[in-house]
């Protein structure tokens, strides 16, 4: 579509071209990004990378086993047909085969368990953090308290009702936009405490590589070390009632200076 648009604007009738582009852009926004996203969003935290690698590892392991097992099965389905004159063999067990196909999975599982264990130990280690953010889930909004900076605010969905009901075209970040963004510094270990005031919610930003439940009466802990500045979007991931689909999370990861400036702005504001 981009190509198309560029070629047209370069042409002789820029006016029409601009109009086509505008229609195309509107269609594009309302029909959706034809992203066909197949995999995880790009991870931007240290643990996010570890998690991504682990996910790809096990995915490939599964693919290989899939090809081997079903390669054999489909070969058999093809070759051992009655219509091809196959006569049934008589065997009904083989201790050797059975031992082999018990041992091999054990070996595979152990080799997967080792990196998983290492990753998990890392993910659960919230010590030595640089700052703490406390997140509280409400029906249906989030509250953010910066415990070291004395900043405290609520964050709610900012997508207009009209977009949800379809009387207005949907914006680019439909359902993934909020009034007050969470601002976090890059290059810092941020400990995030999670709790809830009414029912169970779950705080999840895919690119940050972590998800944990926010449970009334509990304080759960996660940590993130964001490596790249940017805006990362997520959603509540535990069914929390009617508007469960409408309490997104938006994190702005910024440099330390920008973060300090933002904190100062919050206090004076």
């Amino acid at each position, binding site marked *: 579509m981009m190509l198309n648009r560029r070629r047209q604007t370069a042409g002789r009738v820029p006016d029409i071209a601009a109009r086509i582009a505008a229609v195309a852009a509107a269609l594009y926004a309302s*029909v*959706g*990004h034809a992203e*066909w*996203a197949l995999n*995880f969003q790009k991870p931007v935290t240290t643990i996010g990378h570890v998690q991504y690698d682990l*996910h790809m590892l*096990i995915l490939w392991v*599964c693919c290989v086993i*899939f090809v081997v*097992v079903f390669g054999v*099965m489909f070969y*058999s*389905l093809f070759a*051992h*047909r*009655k*219509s091809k004159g196959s*006569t*049934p*063999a008589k065997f*009904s*067990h083989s201790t050797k*085969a059975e031992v082999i*196909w*018990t041992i091999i*999975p054990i070996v595979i*599982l152990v080799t997967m368990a080792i990196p*998983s264990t290492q990753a*998990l130990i890392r*993910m*659960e280690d919230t010590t030595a953090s640089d700052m703490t953010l406390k997140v509280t889930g409400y029906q249906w909004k989030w509250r953010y308290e910066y415990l070291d900076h004395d900043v405290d605010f609520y964050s709610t969905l900012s997508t207009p009702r009209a*977009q949800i009901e*379809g009387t207005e075209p949907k914006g*680019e970040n439909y*359902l993934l936009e909020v009034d007050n963004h969470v601002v976090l510094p890059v290059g810092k270990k941020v400990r995030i405490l*999670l709790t809830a005031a*009414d*029912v*169970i919610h779950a705080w*999840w930003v895919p690119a940050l*590589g972590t*998800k*944990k*439940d926010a*449970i*009334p*009466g*509990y304080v*759960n802990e996660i940590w993130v070390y964001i490596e790249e500045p940017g805006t990362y979007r997520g*959603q*509540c*991931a*535990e*069914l929390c009632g*009617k*508007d*469960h*689909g*409408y309490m997104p999370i938006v994190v702005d990861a910024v440099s330390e200076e920008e973060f300090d400036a933002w904190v100062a702005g919050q206090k004076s504001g």
Partner: protein
Amino acid sequence: MTATTADHHDDHHPTGIKRWLFSTNHKDIGTLYLWFSFVMFIVGGLMALVIRSELFMPGLQVVDPHFFNQMTTVHALVMLFGAAMPVFVGLANWQLPLMIGAPDMALPRLNNWSFWLLPPAATLLLISLFMPGGAPAAGWTIYPPLSVQGGMGVDFGILALHMMGISSIMGSINIIATVMNMRAPGMTLLKMPMFVWTWLITGFLLVTAIPVLAGAITMLLTDRHFGTHFFDPAGGGDPVMFQHIFWFFGHPEVYILILPAFGVVSQIIPTFARKPLFGYTSMVFATATIAFLSYIVWAHHMFTVGMPLTGELYFMYATMLIAIPTGVKIFNWVATMWRGSMTYETPMLYAIGMVFLFTIGGFSGLMLAVVPADFQYHDTYFVVAHFHYVIFGGTILGALGAVYFWLPKWTGHMYNETLGKWHFWLTVIGMNLTFFPQHFLGLAGMPRRIPDYALQFTEFNMMSTVGAFLLGFSQILFLTNVLRTIKGGEKASDRVWEGSEGLEWTLPSPPPYHTFVTPPQVK
């Protein structure tokens, strides 16, 4: 002598509605169970189509979010407790006595009662949709505190679950009693057909797991109405405790759903490969191992609740372990096919489809077991894809295969093979179109149980909805085929299939109302 008198007396069984209401005959009750579960399958399926219609594109078009939540919740409860569990109790009722050479189930009156609890239970569950506040809407997992917030529909749901639970417990007591006591002389435990074995083990899972659910929902009920605070932190209770209790039932439950389907496939594949089941003994032990392990992995559904590291590690290892006996079963099925002499009648297609699709679900299960990655997968469409591959691909395809496999025996007529194959292919294509894209949606970040979604998820949701309608409407072929087979069709022989093995195939098709009044001898 006594046997003939008994025959004579019982042949005057009631007819019309009374036959079905008062029946203590395992075949009649089996038929009732099967029709009941089919009706529930359609009801639950229609709810799924409501869900998929809403999710066809972003925005709210069809329903409001609260009704959407009721649909996801009631769809799951109807499908699990109304369709997937009863269909196998129906198959057990029809088949177990025929397969072990027993005249009937051990406890025929209990059998009648366990069936007739189901229609009122389903009615309670469904009328909750019309209560003030609507039906239960906290998901089939009914986690408090959310489930404490609901209206009286939740109480209807709890009562319905209790009744269905009692029905399952009675049904499984009956199955255990039948298998333990009523086998024909000579049929030792290790000569039992695999379907009987898997049901025996499932029976034990049911009698032990369902009471745990009953405890959890009773506590929920008293929290809702009688001022207890089992799950309310404000009163010293603990919402996470509910999840532990629920999944202590819930994980065995998922194996309750799949083990009988394993049994069915283990009957069908040898029949059409014309070769005995490979590794019978290891199949029995693998099934028992899976059942045992299913009790000690429950918290893998709760990796994100904030368990201690050691707890997470333990549940990760234990869950990974389940892959081993599950793998053994899959390898054994493939080895049964290996160097067989295969033909592909509809039941065999279903069995192969089941092995293939269930295994895809097994792979995603393995991925979910890896805790650091599960932090990403949990509560997304990836989990939805996982459990639909194992439950639709495994349980439902297994049940459909079983019906095609034994229908000629039950009715005395052959079903229409062409129609059966069409049904198979459309079902399999529909199911993959519906559920495969959901893997991608989950990985890309779409949470489950949301009525509306961000724009980047549009394409795969559209595919999924198209698939769901295809899947739903294909079931008309199944109904047509079954009805036509009941009415008439080519006469089925006693053995029905060339490769048939087992006692049920020694009986006429259809079998007389009372069978094995004098027990057969098993060598």
